[in-house]
């Protein structure tokens, strides 16, 4: 059941492939520049809590996001700025969550990568690794029960998170229910500081697929074209009823675990290995080589995106912060069942 994209097949000069690749590149670029902006804001002390970047994972992330329809389900993880944008998240929503704007989807209640819009199929992660997969299963199961066909649900995970029991239970559950789940594992060589050798023993995480009876796809995560092909295929197979698809991409995290982390522990040999290639540069070179775009165009995009991000940040920074006095301190939706505690703090 193993489907490996070993080399980067020359993509036909079809307009569709070209358009998709260009669109994907622009989204990757936006994600990268957004990440750069978060990093700058973090250094400037403008962000509360952690900042988690997707540098080096944009190709994989955008590939899955762009392969989905708006009616699909997507539960991204911490390094999926690109996939989120591809699935339809706005730059403003992303920044609002990082800056804690009251107008953002999380209203300052949750922050940074913990954002989504569940009613739009865009699920907000909880921090507990592995926990989102079965939630995606549930949405897919529900669609089936409601008689809605053709939905695919995708979610992302790191190499480290494959060690969680939640991952195991959920992937097995998807297999048993034959759900159209696409599980994208970014094997970026580290879980925080922990190398994969302390995390698992199999050669390739794709080796796990046969034990679950699901299809596996291995891909070079630094290669946008390969990622687009693999993600497209996996999504198509899931959509056509072939059950869960496991995508394993090998790449290197090109940043710290979070912006507080200088990632000194990353093996220098990995950095200079093919895994250490920057997928954004690889994609750019590909576009130029194919003459699908010229440098001037790409520079122009960069300028546009930077402006878009700067404008968004400027806008969001003028937006109201959440106000504890206006806040509804209610964890349940059934108003008649809410207890007000005399001893509540604050105010």
């Amino acid at each position, binding site marked *: 059941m193993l489907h490996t994209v070993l080399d980067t097949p020359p993509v036909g000069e079809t307009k569709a492939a070209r358009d998709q690749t260009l669109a994907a590149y622009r989204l990757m670029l936006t994600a990268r520049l957004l990440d750069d902006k978060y990093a700058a804001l973090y250094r400037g002390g403008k962000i509360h809590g952690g900042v988690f970047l997707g540098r080096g994972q944009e190709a994989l992330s955008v590939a899955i996001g762009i392969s989905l329809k708006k009616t699909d389900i997507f539960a991204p993880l911490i390094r999926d700025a690109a996939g989120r944008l591809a699935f339809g998240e706005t730059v403003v929503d992303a920044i609002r969550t990082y800056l804690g704007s009251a107008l953002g989807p999380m209203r300052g209640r949750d922050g940074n990568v913990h954002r989504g819009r569940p009613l739009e199929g865009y699920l907000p992660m909880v921090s*507990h690794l592995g926990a989102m997969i079965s939630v995606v299963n*549930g949405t897919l199961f529900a669609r089936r029960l409601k008689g809605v066909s053709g939905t695919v649900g995708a979610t992302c995970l790191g190499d480290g998170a494959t060690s969680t029991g939640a991952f195991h239970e959920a992937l097995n559950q998807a297999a048993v229910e034959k759900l159209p789940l696409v599980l994208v594992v970014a094997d970026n060589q580290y879980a925080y500081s922990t190398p994969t050798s302390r995390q698992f023993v199999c050669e390739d995480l794709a080796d796990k697929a046969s034990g679950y009876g699901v299809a596996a796809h291995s891909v070079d995560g630094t290669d946008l074209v390969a990622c687009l092909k693999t993600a497209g295929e996996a999504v198509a197979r899931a959509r056509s009823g072939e059950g869960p698809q496991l995508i394993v991409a090998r790449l290197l995290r090109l940043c710290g675990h979070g912006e507080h982390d200088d990632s000194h522990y990353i093996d220098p040999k990995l950095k200079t290995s093919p895994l250490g290639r920057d997928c954004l540069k690889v994609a750019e070179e590909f576009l130029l080589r194919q003459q699908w775009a010229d440098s001037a165009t790409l520079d122009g995009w960069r300028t546009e995106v930077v402006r878009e991000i700067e404008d968004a940040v400027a806008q969001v920074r003028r937006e109201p912060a959440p106000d504890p006095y206006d806040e509804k301190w209610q964890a349940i939706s059934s108003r008649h069942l809410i207890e007000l505690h005399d001893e509540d703090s604050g105010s």
Partner: protein
Amino acid sequence: MSITYLEAIREAQSHALRDDPRVFIYGQDIGAFGGAFKATKNLARDFPGRVLDAPISEDAMVGMAVGAAIEGLRPIIEMQFADFSVVGFNQIVNQAATLFWRTNVPCPITIRLPFGGTEGGGPFHSQSIEAIYAHYPGLIVLTPATVEDAYSMLLEAVAIDDPVIFCEHKFLYYHLKADALPSEALPIGKARIAREGRDLTVVAYSAMVHEALAAAAELSAEGWEIEVVDLRSVKPLDTDTIMASVARTGRLLCVGESWPWGGVTAEIIARVASEGFGLLDVPPQRLNARDTPVPYHPNLWMAHRPTARAIAASARKILRR
């Protein structure tokens, strides 16, 4: 006609499946087999495709329910025993319980926990763990003590828009019978005066209501009139009804089958002491299980949890002050 607590739970599920196409049930051995306790007997047959056997994966079971709830369905999850629900603890307290607050999208799931002690159940098939769920924001925790409540509260649990931990007492499954299912009921969040009395308020829930009632009967022979409050719901907790009862009796004993540190009895006494201090004529008291795992052997088990006799003994001490 006579119907047991267990049958009432089955009937409520059958009713919910019939009336609401959004309802489905997911749990281990609940399909063709009808569940370890037969709480879903024949439901897989009557509602094809909507009563599904789950793998032994409590974490994924709950996660799946949350996803289905996001899509507008109303899943019921059966845990085979309450004790195993802690394997899905993370999904319950961090996924289901936080969803509404984080996203404004409600999470209407019902998690059924066959809980509480029975003879020979032992440390891992007897636990009463309502308190750990009630401690987390975002969950409703229900503990029906009667056949009628088992039925009506389960229906209401499925109908409301929040995650409900539905604690069904295994000892009551077969021991408790009623003549018929109720046509109307107190709403969730309201406690019930199970027996009126003027000398002492005993607050209890689930199986302990019956121990309290037995103690009250015993004490009435001695001339005492015990008021028994059946909480029905431990979160939300109906402080008003408790306070009104204590206002009448001036004396309070709280009884719970779970462990002594924290829990329902502590919460009630803390509330009454801080909000109704003046109503108390004597110190409020609590009676809980002992602070050890639940023992296997019936000799030990009967000494581990509060019994009618122990309740009566505690009550006498309070009444004599």
